[in-house]
């Protein structure tokens, strides 16, 4: 079943929580809702579930307007953050409840519950009541219950929050496959950008009740609509440097620490404009001093993470920039060094509005 929201608005008292939100999810696809707390993500899920009504706008499930349709008649599965497990039933009975409601036979229920419990690593606590479960276990029980009924539409509100990194990683590999095997249409809320990129066929970045950008993970990461989105995706966070886009006989360029960084000629329309030059840490490469356009920096600190090493560098003007490189590769631990900033890896934002300036293509 597909899902289509058109121009949805919702206020509580005088506060506008959602302001003209339109999103579409095709059958069997996953849309990730990504944004800070208070952005309106959970409210949006509750509207789709039918627990609350929008002030204006339309919600269609499989092309049919669901205005006035009761939550239980929408064929939507949910796992929300406040768990809402049945307190008098153990985890097994909680997970089995949608199957029991569908009047499936005992062995089908048994194997359905076991498979999910195993996947979510809660098979050892199936006989525990909710109050005997840790928060992480409650969360996974709620997720298993939502998955058990194989609903056509599934709404998941940050289901892996409070889960340790190992299990989170395993879920990140396995859950998208399970969902696509079941051909479930999913809206998945998360604040973890890696999860967003791994789960989402598309990602809708939402803040202050407004959709800022909708696109594939590739769109969002490579051409973020504004600097705020660029900062939300990526770890360490994207570097940005104040520059003025300039032009001379050779072409379009910007100066970083008085060194020339050549830019795509499509940026001609930004000449003279105050801009922020965005460059991701993994695109900052250490190079020999002789490298054309090498920018001098001072390496201040080195932080080895798991799969990469992060260097904190200072430019000649005292701006901090982060460079990251794969673990095991050689780089300067501290002291003077040179980095290269390649035109192909640069994003240019309007300094005042924060909007991405895309280079004109016809050049």
């Amino acid at each position: 079943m597909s899902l289509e929201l058109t121009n949805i608005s919702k206020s509580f008292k005088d506060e506008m929580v959602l302001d003209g939100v339109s999103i579409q999810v095709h059958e069997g696809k996953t849309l990730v809702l990504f944004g800070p707390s208070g952005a309106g993500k959970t409210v949006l899920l509750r509207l789709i579930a039918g627990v609350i009504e929008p002030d204006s706008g339309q919600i269609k499930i499989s092309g049919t307007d669901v205005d006035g349709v009761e939550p239980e008649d929408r064929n939507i599965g949910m796992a929300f953050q406040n768990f809402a497990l049945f307190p008098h039933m153990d985890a097994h009975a909680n997970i089995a409840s949608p199957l029991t409601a569908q009047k499936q036979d005992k062995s089908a229920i048994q194997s359905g519950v076991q498979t999910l419990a195993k996947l979510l690593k809660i098979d050892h606590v199936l006989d525990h009541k909710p109050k005997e479960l840790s928060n992480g276990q409650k969360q996974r029980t709620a997720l298993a219950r939502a998955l058990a009924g194989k609903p056509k539409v599934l709404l998941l509100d940050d289901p892996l929050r409070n889960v340790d990194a190992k299990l989170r990683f395993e879920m990140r590999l396995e859950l998208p496959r399970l969902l696509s095997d079941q051909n479930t249409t999913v809206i998945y809320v998360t604040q973890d950008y890696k999860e967003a990129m791994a789960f989402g066929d598309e990602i809708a970045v939402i803040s202050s009740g407004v959709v800022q950008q909708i696109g594939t993970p590739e769109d969002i990461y490579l051409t973020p609509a504004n600097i705020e989105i660029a900062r939300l995706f990526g770890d360490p966070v994207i570097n940005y440097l104040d520059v003025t886009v300039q032009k001379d006989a050779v072409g379009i360029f910007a100066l970083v620490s008085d060194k020339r960084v050549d830019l795509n000629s499509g940026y001609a329309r930004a000449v003279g404009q105050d801009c922020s030059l965005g460059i991701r840490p993994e695109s900052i490469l250490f190079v020999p001093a002789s490298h054309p356009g090498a920018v001098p920096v001072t390496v201040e600190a080195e932080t080895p993470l798991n799969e990469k090493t992060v260097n904190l560098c200072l430019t000649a003007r005292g701006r901090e920039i982060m460079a990251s490189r794969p673990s095991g590769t050689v780089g300067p631990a501290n002291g003077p060094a040179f980095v290269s900033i390649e035109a192909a890896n640069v994003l240019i934002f309007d300094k005042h509005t924060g909007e991405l300036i895309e280079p004109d293509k016809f050049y």
Partner: protein
Amino acid sequence: MSDVMLDLNSVDKFYGSKGQGVHAVCNISMKVMRGEIIALLGSSGCGKTSMLRMVAGFEAVSRGKISIGDREIHALRPVERNVAMAFEGYSLYPTVTVRDNIAFALKSSKFSATDVAVKVDEIAAMLEISTILDKYPSSISGGQQQRASLARALIRDADLYLLDEPMGQLEPQLRTLLRGRIKAYIKERGLTAILVTHDQTEANALADRIAVMEDGELQQFASPEDIKKSPANIFTGTFVGEPPMNVFPARASISEETVCLRLNENIDLSYPADAFSAELRASLAEMGDIVLGVRPYAVQRRDTGSLATVVVNQWLGDQSHIATNFAGGSLVLVEHDRTQLSEDEQIAIYLEPSDIHIFNSKTGMAISHGARLIG
């Protein structure tokens, strides 16, 4: 006075009656030095919060001793222990403002009202709660309450600071920002702190040493660097590190010229004998059955080698996480660019001896890291 600030000596915690109750903390001994930041890291239910609650005095120890400096404290009431705490559910006083909640911690101190105000403003700015100081706890968000509670703990003068998931409610970006500031605050003042977390990034970023716990037992207590390079056992190896370490059962056979590690499905990893130290070769020959571990970012792709089949390829911006079926198990690789590999594609795998960890298959304890015997 010694340099040991906190000394846990053979501490146990049982819940319920013996025999059928839960053994939440099993015979843990550890020493925390003055000025150190320690993280208790583990999955939910591993006993890390029970540990912290025993140090705080919210739970009695079932057995063992706890000392702070020269004082034995395990029989003292919480208020007599001189520890500052920020706990989940260790709630703010609802009838006074956030400012008064934080300032209350300095009530019995010698500071003037002006000094107290300055200190509260300073710590509120650090934790990004300056704008809510005049609000009441009921009107602020969970994340703000958590920071107010953290401020109230950190502003105090105490021997020990106990922080239970202090940033659990906060957004990732804010968490990253505050991590650095909190660490600097603690270090500048030479405070001693114990942090409970399930988030290894937080543990790595904040802690001088990490105590990894599972099933109530201390699995390893070492610096983040040591835990990464030399995990003490399979649990630590596969729990700390993102993505987790790959592990495979293997059988070692040693000859004059080669070391062969045979995985399931008869996949042989063969190396020249001198790639492994003589001591390790002797030990491998004796054991036969082992468990082999390799970190995802150390797995290499070559033109020829043992074949793995791609199951999932997830691109995360600066890296690709590729999960494969290999030797009857799952092998995950991290590559640093956008790898174009699709489902069911076959790739050839090579593991460098210096990247291989070997564990005892019966005890799970580490035998070697990087082709050198431990010890």
